[in-house]
């Protein structure tokens, strides 16, 4: 492919090829402080290719694929090329990663212990993790938490944080402009802007921690809090994992251990400040 870049995020290495320069240039800027792995052997190949030959030039349209792809993935406009590259990497992880149990969850660490937050898109888990990451916690990831199959530790996957709609202004007010990506307007998920995690999150991206608390956050009501039974936790985490079935028995062993050992709470919160207060209180009580 004409333009390419190799990136390492946590334990995974990606070779990203693109028919256009723009997505690669944007990635290079935002991932500039990540380890230099130019020319390394990659775990995954990501391809951003034209949906047809003419679409390289005329109303350029990106088809996201790679080692693992979805035949019916919707094409994206070149203006959203950075998002396409991020989605391409997520797709490889979701479909192809086998070295950890992958949980669709954000995670932050303090004193070597990890808070895991999982929920649907729009639950606020990503924004909450980003905010905590600016307030004394180490951001480990906003999208995937990696559960180690042997040790039971959570390992970081600190890719760019993907902020959506209202969360953009909330976070952009707190972090320097140099750590913010371009505003991608009117994507399929609304407005999106990427944020580079703090330097310590990147520097310590090989360093995991034991999970101490699992939260199911939900933005929009409350504040309210309830304990969650292990059966429900197990079921929700299997649904939040893209590789639970593919891992087979080791995945079962790791997830049942996690569920049996990590206390879980569902929290409803009306605002970011309320959520942070609830997290602080639960962390001091339980974790």
């Amino acid at each position, binding site marked *: 492919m004409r333009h390419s870049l190799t990136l390492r995020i946590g334990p995974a290495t990606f070779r990203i090829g693109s028919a256009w320069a723009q997505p690669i240039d944007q990635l290079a800027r935002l991932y500039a402080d990540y380890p230099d792995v130019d020319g390394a052997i990659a775990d995954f190949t990501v391809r951003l290719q034209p949906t047809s030959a003419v679409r390289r030039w005329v109303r350029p349209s990106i088809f996201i694929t790679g080692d693992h792809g979805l035949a019916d993935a919707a094409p994206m406009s070149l203006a959203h090329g950075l998002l396409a590259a991020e989605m391409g990497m997520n797709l490889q992880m979701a479909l192809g990663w086998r070295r950890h149990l992958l949980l669709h969850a954000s995670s932050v660490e303090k004193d070597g212990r990890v808070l895991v937050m999982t929920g649907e898109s729009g639950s606020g888990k990503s924004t909450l993790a980003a905010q905590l990451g600016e307030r004394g916690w180490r951001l480990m990831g906003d999208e995937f938490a990696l559960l180690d199959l042997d040790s039971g530790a959570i390992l970081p996957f600190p890719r760019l944080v993907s902020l959506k709609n209202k969360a953009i202004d909330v976070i952009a007010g707190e972090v320097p402009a140099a750590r913010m990506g371009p505003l991608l307007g009117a994507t399929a998920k609304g407005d999106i802007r990427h944020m580079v995690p703090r330097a310590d999150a990147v520097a310590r991206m090989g360093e995991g921690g034991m999970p101490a608390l699992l939260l199911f956050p939900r933005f929009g009501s409350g504040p309210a809090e309830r304990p969650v*039974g*292990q*059966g429900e936790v*197990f*079921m929700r985490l*299997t649904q939040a994992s893209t590789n639970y*079935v593919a891992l*087979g*028995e080791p995945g*079962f062993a790791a997830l*049942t251990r996690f*569920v*049996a050992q990590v206390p879980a709470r569902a929290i409803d919160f009306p605002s970011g400040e309320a959520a942070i207060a609830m997290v602080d209180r639960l962390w001091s009580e339980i974790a």
Partner: protein
Amino acid sequence: MVGEEFYRREGAEAIIVRPLDDIVLLYHRPSGQTHMVISPVPEILDTMADGLPASATMLRDRLALLYDLGEGDVVGEIGQHLAYLDRIGLVRPA
């Protein structure tokens, strides 16, 4: 009972049992499937641990020694559980 179905449990190496606080998880190695079950399914499987053929009536008798089974069509209920367990491969017709 004449004509009653007999089943035997799959070998112990085929099924991993993990009780959580409110449910029991069964991981079935040959299919790679995880099943979430509640009482009386784990108890039924326990009483079949010897791997020998058993019918719903026999299992009712064994379970009655350990638990208060109450009123109603217990044999019919156990029979339905056995049919379900057969479908997901945890027991086989003997």
